[in-house]
């Protein structure tokens, strides 16, 4: 079943064309990893998927329905789509526990007791149940990112978007975050991951998309793309990063 389908997506910032004619589809339960040089439009594409950026043209179908012109209903759509940011963006005045249980309590009217239970279970899942009572500033970057993943999961999304989740982390902290993401993929979560972690792409992705200059240059299984890339630009990019 196709969960997400992007058709002829384009995006301009002023006169600058950052996405052109992007077409892709994500099956339910699939893990799609998007790679490419900086400025290639991968983050913009991800941000278009949950409408943090309004697309300039084209369609984005979520479970068959176009979501690019929802108006105020966009909030209902976003509840189904979790997002994890490069810079974590935890709420600094809320404890770790409140960061995770605030949205389900406010938006889904989950009773406080249930929301807290769910939040503790999620924190346990990301290995941070002992940090429930502290504020985000007391955590390392890797821990903050894992809390951010738990926060997104608390809304029980059907699709998770990861925008370079490990790019702002010290190298030794990357592993824990990738481990959580791997576990999530193993549980069947549908994921679109923008990353520079080629190891993760190779091990976890069902499909790898290579973007450059605002459009999709090549997409294939990780084995194909890493061992025999078809396009010259894919080849030279991989030669530089691997």
């Amino acid at each position: 079943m196709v969960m997400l389908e992007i058709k002829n997506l384009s995006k301009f910032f002023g006169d600058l064309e950052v996405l052109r004619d992007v077409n892709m589809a994500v099956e339910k339960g699939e893990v799609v990893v998007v790679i490419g040089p900086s400025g290639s439009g991968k983050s913009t594409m991800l941000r278009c998927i949950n409408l943090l950026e309004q697309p300039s043209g084209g369609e984005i179908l979520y479970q068959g329905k176009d979501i690019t012109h929802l108006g105020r209903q966009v909030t209902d759509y976003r509840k189904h789509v979790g997002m994890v940011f490069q810079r974590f963006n935890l709420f600094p005045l809320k404890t770790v526990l409140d960061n995770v249980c605030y949205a389900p309590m406010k938006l889904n009217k989950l009773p406080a007791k249930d929301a807290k239970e769910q939040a503790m279970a999620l924190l346990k899942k990301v290995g941070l149940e002992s940090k429930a009572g502290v504020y985000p500033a007391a955590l390392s970057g890797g821990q903050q990112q894992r809390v951010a993943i738990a926060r997104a999961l608390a809304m029980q999304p059907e699709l998770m978007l990861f925008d370079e989740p490990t790019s702002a982390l010290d190298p030794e902290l990357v592993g824990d975050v990738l481990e959580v993401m791997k576990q999530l993929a193993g549980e069947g979560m549908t994921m679109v991951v923008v990353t520079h972690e080629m190891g993760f792409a190779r091990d976890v992705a069902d499909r790898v998309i290579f973007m450059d200059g605002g459009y999709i240059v090549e997409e294939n299984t990780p084995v194909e793309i890493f061992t025999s890339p078809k396009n010259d630009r894919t080849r030279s990019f991989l030669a530089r990063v691997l």
Partner: protein
Amino acid sequence: MELNFQKAFAKLGPSLLDGVGIVVYITLAGFACALVAALLIAIGRLSKSRVLDRILSIFIELIRGTPLLVQFFYIYYVVPMLINGISAAMGYHTNVQLEASTCGIIGFAINYGCYMSEVIRSAILAIDPGQREAGLALGFSEGQVLFGFIIPPALRNSVPVFGNYLVMLIKDTSLLAMISVQELLLRTKTFASQTFLTVEAYTILALVYLVISIPLSQLSRLVERRLKRVR
């Protein structure tokens, strides 16, 4: 020169105590109204409406470009005349009069509201845009994000500056002597002109202001340090 502080204090003291009551009332009411006004102006200026932003920024320029004392006079004398004049022109007979202390509260709300709105506005702009995006991505609306994730930390970061404005406002209540509010300065002035204990009276007055404002600025410094520690 002979000084008689004892006599001055015995007579002026109780009167000043009443005056402190008025000062505290006007300060609290004026500051609370100013905070609300500041928040509304700040939100208005940050809204998507260019027109609203323009109108508000002209208004702020008007207020910041004229002395607070002139504004008090304007509210006390001119505004009632304008209201009565306009309603007379429309065929109604009104006799609006504003009580002096009410004029003080309105004046502080407008004047301090404008100054503090700039504080709040820059505090809002200083909040990481990632906070907004995180809120939106979870499914909150723009309004929920603004009041849930942007304004609380922005206000919190503004608290030290608010403390300074509060102390300034207390001292500025002395301007209200000019529109006949029975606050500390007017009471002292009357007392001094009746008894000729000029040196004593004004010295006591200055001390009373210090007794109020020094602990307050200490308190605001304490709060500031507290806030820093929690984060």
